[in-house]
């Protein structure tokens, strides 16, 4: 049994909106092995970003984590006092968001913004000392140290994302969560940022969770992939197995929907629309769009089944 960095048990996150309860994350159970690169892949509304926020207990209202346990280093994060959780954030678990421009303060030098992390977490009380550490952190992500004095607008999009990564890994966390970190960037820069994440993962012996809509990006970079649909993890397992032999019809559909420069010159797509999470379909949430639906799919919800080293939530495998 591999040691896990974080284990989710039956985690549900609901948003209490005026028009109804949205089950954004619905009873998710899985283990993230230590030192691995794990991607959560899904389309809009699949719950992937909400799940990332739940790991840091940062789900904004009207959202609320309504059930489950998130076990990190032997502690259940969901039962920690807020003060303790605040200490963990940025130190043991860090997060990088999609848009580096909105995550950085435009009127403060980037070095100061990284230095904040050291001061907030009590590594030092001396700003000079913190700035020295910030310089080292910048160099670690491939930015010349003298750019501590730059303002965000003086840096390119890729460099701004590197600054955020520097701040996120400043205290050498054991888990880094990256939510669509390269979606706003061009492909060449994206490739280099992903290289950086992989390098840092090895150097700092971190685990990485990548949240992405891009299954090709996930396929290239991950050890393991969790495919999400309508708040559920429908399939989770080692990347090669998932890419070469997807078990869940949604995973297969997603793979066949992705255009590929080196693959076939056509894509298939999945008929229909994603479900309204205020009013999800009965049974399996994917059944209205599923090419392989049969008798139980519109009545009973499939549980999780273990198939070799994968888990899958589909009636095709429940018997």
């Amino acid at each position: 049994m591999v040691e896990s960095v974080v284990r989710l048990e039956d985690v549900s996150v609901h948003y209490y909106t005026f028009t109804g309860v949205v089950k954004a994350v619905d009873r998710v159970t899985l283990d993230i092995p230590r030192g691995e690169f794990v991607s959560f892949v899904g389309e809009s509304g699949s719950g992937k970003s909400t799940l990332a926020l739940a790991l840091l207990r940062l789900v904004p209202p009207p959202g609320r984590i309504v059930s489950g346990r998130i076990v990190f280093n032997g502690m259940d994060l969901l039962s920690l006092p807020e003060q303790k959780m605040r200490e963990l954030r940025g130190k043991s678990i860090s997060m990088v968001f999609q848009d580096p421009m909105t995550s950085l303060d435009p009127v403060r030098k980037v070095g100061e913004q990284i230095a904040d992390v050291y001061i907030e977490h009590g590594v030092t009380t001396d700003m000079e000392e913190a700035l020295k550490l910030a310089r080292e952190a910048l160099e670690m992500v491939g930015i010349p140290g003298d750019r501590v004095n730059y303002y965000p607008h003086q840096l390119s999009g890729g460099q701004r994302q590197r600054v955020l990564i520097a701040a996120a890994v400043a205290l050498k966390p054991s888990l880094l969560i990256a939510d669509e970190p390269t979606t706003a960037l061009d492909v060449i820069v994206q490739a280099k940022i992903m290289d950086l994440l992989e390098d840092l993962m090895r150097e700092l012996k971190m685990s990485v969770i990548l949240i992405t809509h891009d299954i090709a990006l996930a396929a290239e970079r991950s050890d393991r992939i969790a495919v999400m649909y309508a708040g559920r993890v429908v399939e989770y397992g080692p990347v090669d197995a998932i890419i070469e032999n997807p078990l869940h019809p949604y995973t297969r559909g997603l793979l066949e929907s992705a255009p590929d420069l080196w693959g076939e010159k056509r894509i298939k797509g999945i008929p229909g629309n994603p479900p309204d999470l205020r009013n999800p379909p009965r049974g399996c949430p994917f059944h209205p769009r599923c090419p392989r639906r049969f008798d139980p799919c519109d009545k009973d919800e499939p549980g999780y089944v273990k198939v070799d080293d994968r888990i899958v939530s589909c009636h095709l495998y429940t018997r």
Partner: protein
Amino acid sequence: MPLVHEVIVVSVLLSVRGLKKYFVQGGGILGGEKEVVKAVDGVSFDMKRGETLALVGESGCGKTTTGRLVLRLLEPDDGEIIFDGVNITHMSMKELRPFRRRMQMIYQDPYASLNPRKPIGEAIAEPLIVHGLAEKEEAKEQAMKMLERVGLTPAEDFYDRIPSQLSGGQRQRVVIARAMILKPEFVVADEPVSMIDVSMRASILELLKGFQEEYGLAMIFITHDLSVARLVADKIAVMYLGKIIEYGPVDKVLRDPRHPYTAALATAAPSITMRRRKRLDIKGEIADPRNLPLGCRFHPRCPYAKEDCASKEPELREMDDGRLTACHYPLEEGFLDHWLKG
């Protein structure tokens, strides 16, 4: 309205020559240095009826500006746009009106390009009324048919809905319906699927293809995604800092690039079938367009740059296989194949 200048017998629908657009920044009441951004800097290409040209490149390369210039949504600073044999470059808004009907734009964001309060049926009927092609009743009837055609059925149910009652994919169908109701001959589609969920992209592309076949539509498809470009396009133009740096049949250019920048883009794009390929890495990021490098604009990032690349700007020239490449030292034929195997 000017008379048709000449009868062009060949099926060239659109001909663009030396198109330029410079934006001036600063130098206003706040002072500061006046800076010129050469967004589009001498772009030329021809398009036949029914043909799809993909314009690709990183953000800031000028692909969207080129699309807008061609439709005369922006005033070009130099160059010529010949549409169906007529020079439309300097036409007044009034002279342009009959051409507007024949050329349409499809935007990236189906949320921003629809009026949130207008029922979608009316939004689709509107262009017919604006162009005086139909009275209200007739326009409604045609809009109903169009709703059916784009798969928003039953049409009566959809006609009175407002955009917020639709999914992203459904909204993009409305945007396409609105552009297609005038039966245009030419359309510029600017990243039409990049905001659509992956599982619904195929059906949107399919829809565009259907209209294209039916109307013999020529299309400029603007995208940052090479794998999407490969699916939809016949020809591809790769842009870098306001210039086309490579142009030709889509498979030829993407699978056997002769420009190092095209090769870098092609090997950087994530791929499921070639997960462990060797990337052709280039240095840094796209240069500041206010401060273009001398010589070849790509030379500071080019792994193969030689001395004269920093002084002499390469022109697009024909390679032995007929495609156009703007590089003093183009890659050899079959380069990428060897690279990926090696």
